[in-house]
Structure formats: C-alpha cells, structure tokens
C-alpha cells in the first residue's frame, strides 16, 4: 500500500533529516513512528505527503512514485493518502458537516464546487463519516465551537471523505487529554481493522503505541533504530530511544 524506499532528505544548510529510510505499511496495518524531538518523524510524514520534496528515494503509493511528481500530477496521485495533523485545522466559520464534505473536493472540478458549493451526495456521505466518528449530532454546528477532541474526530471524518487508502497522522493526540487521545487512537485502529486503511502515525506516547499499533518504528537522527511488531518490542529498546536524546 505505502512503500518508502531509500528516502533521504537533507536541508539546504546541510543537515541530514532522513537517511536512506525504508518503510512499508500494508492495508489494515497501524504503524507508529516513535522518536525524540528532531529525530526526523515529522520530516518523514512531510516527505511522504509531499509537502517536502525529498532529496532522494521513492515514495510508492499503490503503484505510483510520488517523489518525482509535481503540480497537477502530484495532486491526483496524492488523493489516496489523507493527512491528519496535530491540530484539527478546520475552517472554523463553516459547519462541521461542510468541513467534512470539503475532504471530497479533490474529486470534483466543476463550477459548483469552485463557487463554494458542495455536492449533495458528498454532504450525505459526510453525514455518514460524522456518524462513524460519533459526531453526527454536531453536523450543523460551527467548527470553531468544538472541543479539541471533537475537532480532531471531525478532522478524521474529513480525511475519510477523501476516500483514502492510507492515513498519515502527525501527532494527532498531542494536544488532547488522555481520554480523548485514547478515543482517537481507537478510531484509527478501527479504521485500519474494519476499513483496511494503512495507518502511519507519529506519536510521542509510548503506551498508546503499545496499545494500538501493529508495528513500531523507532527513529533517531533520521535513521531507523528498530522496526518491530508491538508484541516483540522490549520496553528497554524504546527507553533507549529517548534516553539517547536526553544524553
């Protein structure tokens, strides 16, 4: 589903953010990336979502390599991958339902959507996605009135409206309380299990990784330290990942 081969990213100042990175995420799998600050986790997601252009390597989404693409070809090729951010990033003055339906805009090119309209079929689908994340009752409410946890669930519903096969999540629970964080991770787990989405999630919370991931990838200085199933991941290995940062 998602395959990253030899991904390398170096910034103009010479700093190597990712070095020869290899990663596979299959359909129905939740892979969590752990690592200290500045280890390259967010750069990895930004390269995969192609908001950054990698210096070298390939990013295979299904059978298309995103790395060399740009412009309209990139926009089209990227459609199967949806992104969830640390903050929900909703249009605060529009309704919750409209925000969700906006996730489908990429599939439309007509005058109606260009003028600010949303197809009726997508509004209905958006309602279903909101039901899936348990927020159908808030469909008509302004997005700016939601709590952090609710907003993040709406962001997930918007990602689902995109009809993705891959979900990329960059610290999606960083600004949430433990109960809301648990809820969001359970939702991502369910989407992988029942809808067969490939989920790649950057986290700082080790317990959540143990609780919901199939595999955990440890990363330090842009390089993979370990890539193991959760069931075969000693706590010492994770502790060492963060200890070396503290040192």
């Amino acid at each position, binding site marked *: 589903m998602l395959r990253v081969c030899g991904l390398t990213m170096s910034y103009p100042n010479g700093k190597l953010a990712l070095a020869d990175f290899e990663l596979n995420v299959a359909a129905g799998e939740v892979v969590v990336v752990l690592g200290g600050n500045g280890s390259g986790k967010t750069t990895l997601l930004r390269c995969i979502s192609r908001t950054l252009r990698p210096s070298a390597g390939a990013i295979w989404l299904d059978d298309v390599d995103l790395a060399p693409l740009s412009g309209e070809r990139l926009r089209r090729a990227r*459609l199967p991958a949806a992104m969830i951010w640390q903050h929900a990033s909703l249009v605060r003055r529009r309704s919750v339902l409209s925000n969700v339906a906006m996730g489908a805009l*990429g599939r439309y090119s007509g005058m109606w959507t260009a003028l600010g309209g949303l197809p009726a079929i997508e509004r209905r689908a958006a309602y279903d996605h909101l039901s899936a994340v348990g927020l159908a009752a808030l469909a008509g409410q302004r997005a700016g009135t939601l709590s952090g946890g609710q907003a993040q669930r709406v962001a997930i519903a918007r990602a689902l409206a995109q009809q993705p096969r891959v979900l990329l999540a960059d610290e999606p629970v960083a600004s949430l309380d433990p109960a809301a964080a648990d809820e969001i991770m359970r939702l991502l787990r369910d989407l992988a299990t029942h809808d067969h989405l490939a989920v790649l999630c950057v986290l700082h919370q080790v317990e959540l990784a143990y609780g919901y991931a199939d595999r955990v990838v440890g990363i330090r200085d842009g390089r993979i330290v370990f890539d193991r199933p959760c069931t075969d991941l000693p706590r010492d290995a994770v502790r060492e990942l963060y200890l070396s940062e503290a040192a």
Partner: protein
Amino acid sequence: MSLGAAAPHLAERSWTDAIRVAVRLVCAVALMLIVIQAAIVVRARPQDLITGAYGMADIIRRAMPPDFSKIDEVWWPALETIDLAIFGTLGGVIMAVPLAILAAVNVTPSRALYYASRGLIGFARAVPDLVWALLFVTAVGLGPFPGALALSVHSIGMLGRLFAETIENMDMAPIDALALTGARRVQIFTHGIIPSILPSLLGIALYRLDENIRSSVVLGFVGAGGIGFELLSAMSLFQYQLVSLLLIVTFVIVIAAERLSAVLRARLG
C-alpha cells in the same frame, strides 16, 4: 559599598544625565522651530480670527432658521450622496479583492504580480479622491457618476491594503489541510480562504462605506453631484438658510452611517 568606591559610578551617571538633558533641550528647540516655520508658511494671523468672527456671526444669523420648506428639494441630492458612497464602496470592494489576493504574500501566485498589485494599490491610495474626481469629471462630465468612480478607485487603495493584510494574517493551517485533501486552488479559495476572512472583509468594507459617505459630500464641490454640489450652489447664491438645511441633512446622514456601520461591525466581530 563605600562612598569612595561608588564615586566613579556617580561621576559617570552625572555625565549621562547631562547628555540626556541636552538631548531633550535640543528636541524641544527643534519642535518649537518646526511649529514656528509652519505658522509662517501658513501665514497664521490670530487677529484675523477676531475680525473674521463678525463675518462668521453674520453668516450664522442669515442662515437661521434653516429653510425647511425646501426639504423636498434636498431628498434627491441626499440619496445621491448615499448612493455615491454605496457605488464607490462596492466598486472598490470588487476591484480590491482580486488585487488583495495578488498582494498577499502568503497566497500570491507570483512575486511579479505581488509587486505589481502592491504598486497599483499604493498608487490608488496616494492620489486623493478629490483629484480622482476632477479627473473623472473631465473624462465623463459633471454629475454623480464621476464621483462614484473617484470613490471606487480611491477605495481600492485602502481596501486593497487592509484586505491583503487580513489575508496575510489569517490562520494558514486549515488552508494547508485543505490543499492536502487534493482541493484545487480555486476550491481552496472559495471553501477555505473566503469563509475565514469574510467577516473581517465586511467589517473593513463597512468602515470604508462610512468614510465614503463623508467623502461623497466633499466630492460634490468639484461637480460630482450629491449634497456637496447643492451646498456649493446654495453658497454661491447666498442662500444661507438652504445651506443650514443642507448641513443638517449632511450631519444626519454622516452620523446615521457612522452608527449603522459601527453596529454592523460589532455584530460581525
């Protein structure tokens, strides 16, 4: 610390204090010189105020009471003044929005377009609305239309700049998120940017409408119609009672527009 050890520091402080006092003195003298030269250049003669007070009192005496019998003749110019401002503001908004998009550093499609639109906005603002009105009166003749055009073009300056600043200061996270869903540029604009900044744009436009109503009165003096044109005519014909009526109507329009604009802007906020 002994007094002896503190002495060098005290000496140092007295020097810096002296310099500070000297700088203040120089600033005060410079300010006084600026005021004096301004009074000389504008040929300010306070005695004229005293001798002119008689003439002013005479005009006020002749303007009283206002000639309310001519109120029927004032409605149309009053409506013209309001419509001048409405047309001018709407025209300004229509032209300022696309220019502001090009002139906002975070959404402009190219650097060249950014500088070109910033230049246009700056030019529209730099030329006073009275000068624009004179130009348009020459081009399309007397009447309210050149006044409305003048207000439109001059409004681009203020609206374009403030709209561009609003766009530059908006939260870009929802816009970036929308872009990553695969939405096209125009969809991002209509679904993300417009809803985010619309209340601010409306607030600015309402404030401009309030300003334009005041400007539209003045534009009448150069032949651009409305109450200003009637005021000029009445003063030329020494019809001071009509002048006072026109001033009362102008006052009511300006205050009403100001209040309405303030109330609507408060609701948008």
